[in-house]
């Protein structure tokens, strides 16, 4: 039997007027120079953002994003009931240390790069169900801290393949509450873990595309919508390789994504920026969604958006032991609506 707000096994429809109250992003230098630079709230000129270490810089960006999002929502920190936060570092230290600076109860979450929509889905559900008046959902990633944990030292002269991706440096935060005039959060589709046997940790686009296809097709099926019902559909960080695969996989499932589909990892950097196949990391989807897409929903140039954040759920230990990369994707539907 279905629960009250369940629309199929994986999709929730929010019954109340759950809306974005405000959102903000903080990014590093390369992202600031990219085509969406003008949309960002904070741009730091170097990877340290004035801090003593990259790890500190990452959590500083998250803190700035949260503070600014709360301020833009015309709320006080004390009015936020819960913060849902996640990042890529071991034991999600960026989120935990950021929350220690905020006087807001924390629920730490991990969904690799899908954390942006994972926190937004759960946050919206808490608001919808009446367990919180205002919720902050946030996540972060940092190119250097991620490279340090998952790959090689930043200054190591190893050659990366063209299908590798560039971890986005930045953080995004969004305040969710009932009422107001911001974009409506209408649906969330929670993804299943999909493992299609890809083992190359550089090839995350190929690994994650099937998870995105699974979540998107489930979303369309559950909501009885088609890709053409949206003005824009984005995936979080599939890059050039994953973007092409997803389009063809969706075509195989009889969904034509072509006119409305884009990938945050491709939107955030310009063609002249050396980022291999495109951007990746929690911040990829968060930074694009919480700036560019929110701004377009607010000014009405986009009426309906579907954000499908994709995550590769592997660790250095798992891939060194020869395991394949399990992946996940969560989708959230946003809509511009009159008050």
């Amino acid at each position, binding site marked *: 039997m279905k629960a009250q707000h369940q629309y199929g096994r994986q999709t929730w429809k929010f019954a109340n007027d759950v809306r974005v109250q405000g959102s903000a992003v903080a990014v590093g230098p390369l992202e600031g120079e990219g085509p969406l630079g003008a949309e960002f709230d904070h741009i730091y000129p170097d990877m340290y953002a004035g801090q003593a270490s990259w790890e500190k810089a990452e959590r500083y960006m998250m803190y700035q994003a949260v503070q600014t999002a709360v301020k833009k929502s015309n709320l006080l920190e004390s009015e936020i009931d819960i913060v849902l936060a996640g990042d890529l570092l071991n034991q999600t230290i960026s989120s935990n240390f950021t929350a220690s600076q905020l006087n807001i109860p924390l629920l730490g979450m991990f969904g690799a790069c899908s954390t942006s929509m994972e926190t937004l889905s759960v946050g919206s559900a808490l608001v919808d169900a009446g367990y919180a008046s205002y919720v902050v959902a946030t996540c972060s990633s940092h190119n250097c801290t991620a490279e340090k944990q998952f790959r090689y030292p930043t200054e*190591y002269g190893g050659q990366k393949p063209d299908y590798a991706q560039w971890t986005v440096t930045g953080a995004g935060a969004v305040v969710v509450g009932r009422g107001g005039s911001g974009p409506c959060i209408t649906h969330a589709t929670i993804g299943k873990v999909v493992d*299609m046997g890809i083992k190359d940790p550089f090839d995350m686009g190929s690994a994650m595309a099937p998870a995105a296809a699974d979540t998107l097709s489930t979303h369309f099926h559950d909501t009885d919508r088609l890709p053409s019902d949206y003005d824009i559909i984005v995936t979080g960080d599939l890059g050039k390789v994953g973007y092409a695969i997803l389009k063809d996989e969706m075509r195989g499932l009889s969904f034509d994504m072509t006119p409305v589909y884009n990938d945050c990892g491709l939107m955030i950097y310009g063609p002249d920026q050396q980022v291999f196949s495109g951007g990746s990391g929690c911040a990829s989807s968060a930074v694009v969604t919480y700036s560019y897409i929110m701004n377009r929903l607010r000014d009405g140039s986009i009426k309906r958006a579907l954000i499908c954040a994709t995550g590769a759920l592997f660790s250095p230990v798992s891939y060194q032991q020869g395991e394949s990369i399990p992946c996940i994707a969560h989708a959230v539907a946003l809509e511009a609506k009159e008050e």
Partner: protein
Amino acid sequence: MASSVNTRKQNRLAKAQKEYSERAAKYKPKPPYLTNIVKAFLVGGAICAFGQLVSDFYIRVFGFTKETAGNPTVATLIFLAVLFTGLGIYDKLGQFAGAGSAVPVTGFANSMSSAAIEHRAEGLVLGVGGNMFKLAGGVIVYGVVAALVVSLIKWIIIKV
């Protein structure tokens, strides 16, 4: 009964995974092997030619012999590689040259100094000391093992 259902399920998944990896492989750009080989040859060759120049310099100017000039030459190359690593140039060279800048002694110096810089924030002992050989450790271990095996073979051949 349950186990046979599980095996069937696993077989179906393995088949789907195989089909998908074949489909996905088509989208993955192939590494440009020929250009990579040429770049590696040119950069690797240039580093070695520069090393020869340094060696000749020590022999001509400071009166080292061909054998004793080795140590200051290697030290000079290591110093320059560490300097370029610190300046953030060596990783860009590595992306361009691949094996060309990884195989010479400069690549070894880069692997150690980059790890040392990376982990400076975790302190001098556990950070720098503990992580410096993170990448270089494998080269040292298997280099020593290979040297032992080769010298054992040589020793046996001479004895026999």
